[in-house]
């Protein structure tokens, strides 16, 4: 019996080791890439349609359409499938778990809307609460989710690394990390970042997009973080202080080494200022795009705007405190 236990433990150790992920390398900017885009200044921010997003209504799925099943999603922990609509357009659909516990689909659409609103490129994603699906055995109505269009102008060229890319250290990159902290994105794996080749005529851009940010709007505990959970999101603190010029986040996710001792108060203020320019309607539209009930959306928006206010005040408070004599004042912004 003891031998069997040893074999079992050995098998467990080997299989666990085989499935283990490598630690990310130290962060450093990579060589410049022609046409690389992480962020484009949102000069028209005030007039942006945050409900339909940057790809507009013309690229949205028709909720009255009957979609044709192609194949089941075979990667990641979330459920999903590939479908085609009556126009022949292909969609990647992410659906909730039965029981609707911590569904990532609404989060992914809302986060995408917020990212694109302040200048970060995003693929065309939309939310449908339900849809009709036809497969070889008939047609039925299924619970909906996030619909991401396979657009002919966008080519998925793989993932990109948070730790090594041409933008490491730039304000938009630092601001993007801060935004992930604000949203409590608990799953910042490189695999959730997508490098898109975006063709517009003869022009080819390399879009560095945070694509799968559905594990957000909850808390960031290491074990089973909540996603899309307003109570957890309201309870979770944002910034705990400033230490030697770097912001300490309350974030406890697996990839907190991306922000530890790397983010300045000015970085936080930079993205907070952009987010602070979103109108009430744009905030509501971002959550409406994800299918949120207005009352729940209002609570998320309030918490996020509190964080934005905290972030906008942080740089000023920090500068003021660091020129003063009180060390305690360095904990400004809390």
């Amino acid at each position, binding site marked *: 019996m003891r031998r*069997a*236990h040893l*074999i079992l433990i050995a098998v467990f150790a080997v299989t666990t080791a085989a*499935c283990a992920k490598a630690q990310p390398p130290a962060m450093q900017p990579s060589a410049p890439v022609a046409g690389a885009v992480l962020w484009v200044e949102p000069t028209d921010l005030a007039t942006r349609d945050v409900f339909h997003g940057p790809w507009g209504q013309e690229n949205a799925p028709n909720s009255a359409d009957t979609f044709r099943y192609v194949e089941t999603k075979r*990667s990641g922990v979330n459920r999903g499938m590939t479908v085609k609509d009556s126009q022949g357009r292909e969609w990647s659909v992410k659906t909730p778990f*039965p029981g609707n516990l*911590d569904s990532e689909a609404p989060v992914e659409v809302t986060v995408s809307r917020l990212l694109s609103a302040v200048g970060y490129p995003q693929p065309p994603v939309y939310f449908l*609460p339900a849809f009709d699906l*036809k497969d070889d055995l008939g047609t039925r*109505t299924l619970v909906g989710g996030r619909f991401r269009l396979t657009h002919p102008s966008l080519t998925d060229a793989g993932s990109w690394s948070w730790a090594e890319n041409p933008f490491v250290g730039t304000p938009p990159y630092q601001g993007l990390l801060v935004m992930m902290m604000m949203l409590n994105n608990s799953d910042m794996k490189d695999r959730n970042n997508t490098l898109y080749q975006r063709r517009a005529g003869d022009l080819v851009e390399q879009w560095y997009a945070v694509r799968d940010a559905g594990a957000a709007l909850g808390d960031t505990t290491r074990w089973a973080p909540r996603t899309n959970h307003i109570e957890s999101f309201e309870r979770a603190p944002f910034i705990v202080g400033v230490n030697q010029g770097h912001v300490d986040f309350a974030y406890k996710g697996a990839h907190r080494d991306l922000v530890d001792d790397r983010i300045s108060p000015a970085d936080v203020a930079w993205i907070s200022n952009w987010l602070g320019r979103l109108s009430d309607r744009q905030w509501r539209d971002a959550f409406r795009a994800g299918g949120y009930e207005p009352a729940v959306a209002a609570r998320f928006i309030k918490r996020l705007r509190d964080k934005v206010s905290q972030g906008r005040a942080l740089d000023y408070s920090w500068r003021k405190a660091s020129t003063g004599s009180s060390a305690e004042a360095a904990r400004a912004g809390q």
Partner: protein
Amino acid sequence: MAGCRPCYSRNWVVAGLSLALAFGLAATAIAQQGQPASQDVPPVPDLGEPQGLLPEPALVERAAVFADRYLSGGGSGNGFYVSTKSPIQGAGWISLGPGYRHWYKDDQVFIDGSAGVSWRGYKMGQAQLEFPKLLRSRLVLGTMYRWQDFRAIKSYGVGPDTTEAALSTYHLSSQNVVGYATVRLQRWLNLNSSLGWVDPAVRSIGGDEPRFLHTETSLVADTRDYPDHPTSGALLRVAAARFSDQDAGLYSFQRFESEAAGFIALADSRVVIALRGWLVTSNTHDGQFVPGYLQPTLGGGQSLRSYEDFRFRDDHMLLGNLEVRVALMTHVDAAAFVDAGNVAPRVGDLNLDKRSYGGGLRFHTRRATIVRADVAHGQEGWQVRFTLSEPLKLSRTERRTAPVPFVP
């Protein structure tokens, strides 16, 4: 042969009745749960789970989140995985091993291979190749190889009157290669057929076991909402199998099975009544026998829960289960159950004299029972069981290889 005719007739009557029941109940269930496609914007199907009698602590809900993400998937992802399938009751509470699976060409080709060793040292390995979407998903063809080595399977002798003192164990290893086909008549109705080669060896007695050619045909109507944690729907299954002894012919036999399970949700699904009935009969020609490890058995966490695993075995078996589950919390149910059944050398002698009464707790997500604890009492005392599966999972409906040994 002539002496078996009444047995055949009786079995086919049972099978026929079960079939009629299957069609009737399944059609009813489909009519109740069907959601035909709409002409306009479709209504949103209800996804929520019922709240229980008590508020759920955050820790339990967080555990459900974790279980939903990582333990309830049922194996739908490409790549390497950790196989945790316990090969057989009595193998221990957990089994672990590496596995690899992959779907190709829009899910038209599926390969899977895994190996594992259980807490009590039971070992198994398997490889599978399947084409699941032939003829516009109406036909599934596949082949599977399975090797297993079970070192200490309990046996108490043959018949309903054996004593606990008669306990012995045997070491059974076997290889099984099978080709199978499934015709999908409806989304909920499958006609399955398989042809395989089984080579068992009972090492503890050192005897040469015969090799078998094994064929099985079954019709399965399944409208359960979630097979790993059903709260509504029904399952009906009728099956006929033949094991042909390829050596001396002494152990050739036929087996007929009829099984029905129903799940009725009450009080907004806060209460679920689960019912199951299962009849297994065997037929042999004069001078032939069913080998002990292929005889139907009773006892264990999925049949008579107050009895030891494999406590009773004989050529025929009857089992009934009634279970009432009440949602204590959203993801924790309390259950009360009655199990009753028996084995017998003749079908006419079957009864429900062996009984278990008990209760338990289940931690589950919407789609899977993650862990359950059952306490059961019967004529042979108490049993406490911790199990990582649904009590009425009926996994034999998904099985492709021959059941060696027979597991209730």
